[in-house]
């Protein structure tokens, strides 16, 4: 079971992450940690015309958390902020397309939590992780 979570897409994004780096200055920047396993993700966002014009992530952690951050930044780049707000955890998980246990779910969703907390505040991000 555990093995099947390392499908091509994940391994590929883990190896060649998209949008890796930082933006300075950025309109929104947020960083958080998965206290259970120490994964760290930071996301920087620049906004133009109410859209995400540029996005970058940095951090370190397991393949799931880093590939998820890479995939998420690809999903939202160029998208209107409104749609980012509406983005659900299922949307991200569908994109990842792998079966995840509760512990690994938190790895996978850390990037979404960070993105939402950065743009809409910590409370808005709470449902991502509960």
């Amino acid at each position, binding site marked *: 079971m555990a093995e099947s979570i390392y499908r091509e897409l994940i391994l590929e994004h883990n190896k060649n992450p998209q949008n890796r780096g930082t933006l300075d200055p950025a309109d929104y920047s947020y960083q958080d*940690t998965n*206290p*259970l396993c120490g994964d760290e993700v930071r996301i920087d966002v620049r906004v133009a015309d109410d859209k995400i014009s540029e996005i970058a992530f940095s951090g370190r952690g397991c393949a799931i958390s880093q590939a998820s951050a890479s995939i998420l930044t690809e999903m939202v780049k160029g998208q209107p902020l409104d749609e980012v707000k509406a983005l659900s955890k299922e949307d991200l998980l569908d994109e990842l397309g792998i079966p995840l246990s509760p512990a690994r779910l938190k790895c996978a969703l850390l990037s979404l939590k960070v993105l939402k907390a950065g743009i809409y505040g910590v409370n808005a991000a709470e449902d991502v992780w509960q």
Partner: protein
Amino acid sequence: MVLSTQTSATTLDGAALRRDFPILNQPQPEGRPPLAFLDSAASSQKPEQVIQAIDTYYRTINANIHRGVYELSEAATAAYEAARQTMATFLNARQARECIFVRNTTEAINLAANAWGRSNLTANDRIVLTVMEHHSNLVPWHMLREEIGFSIDYIPLTDDHQLDMTVYAQLLEQKPKLVGFAHVSNAIGALNDVAAMTRMAHDAGAAVLVDAAQSVPHMPVDVQALDVDFLALSGHKMVGPMGSGVLYGKRELLEAMPPYMGGGSMIRKVTLDGTTFADIPARFEAGTPAVADQVGLAAAADYLTAVGLEAIREHELELLDYAMEQLPSVPHLTMYGPEDLSKRSGVISFTLGSIHPHDVAAILDGENIAVRAGHHCAQPLMAALGVVATTRASFYMYNTRDDVDRLVAGLHKANEVFGQV
């Protein structure tokens, strides 16, 4: 003696439930009658379902929780967090994280006193407690007072052994920061009106901590309906394992509190220079928790829900009513606690003339009737009642009228042995 609750429709069969509890069905030595267990207020017995839950945990899903990537650890974590959700639902807490797992009521109150008290109380503050508290809701505050220096006022008893609401209202005028009291007194069974007392406290700006060790096992308790800020309970008194318990706290309060114990799981980051702390509930659960016990506690809550807490309450009131009819036949018996049975739980505390309470209990033990004798960890209450100790019989779902009959006969016998006519 008025029984305010309707009892004719009791849906609970004590004798049948008794079969779920292996210890009550142990074979006895030749000539010894079955066990009449009348000490559930000290600790209840455990049904097969709870014993099995612990057993199954160790045989099939045991591992350390959190941070484990492998199957067993995920299963153990899930079982532990499911137990937390069960307890939240059982108490009607808004969120699971409002339930902190602790060893017992004592630890729950020490946690609240230290974490909330240290960050909210100063030398000029007051808190209100009552003279009927168990030592576990007195000593932690005494110890904290030694350090911080605040003042404690105590709500006294009325002649009917209830809390004096007039004095309570006066004490609230002094703007205490906290009011702490037992939902039910373990020593005399007095049942306090938590909702009303909480409303008064909140109107005066005080937070409320309720010691629910003796209520949660015996009646429905809804933390949102009661609106209490903190509530403490012990698993072992509610057919759950020893070593299990909950401190319920409103989320905003818990989130504002510093930790109590330090160690693994409760941290966000540790360096040699210092520590930052995790969110609730982890912040208050340092180290490897008693997972099997808390899983057993959830099984206990499920058991109580299945039996029905309303039904348990009715059954105990029915036994109390019956006991109140029968006990007056015993010469020299003095009972303590409110006359109005709707203001009581199924606890009867008494003295028997000049026979010391321990001797009464020892003679009852000779008849295989288990009761408790002593100060019941409520020395200030004993002082207020003018006694050193009492003998106490307490009921639970598995007790029957037969247990009451045997108690009455045992007390007659005690009078006889001591030549007290």
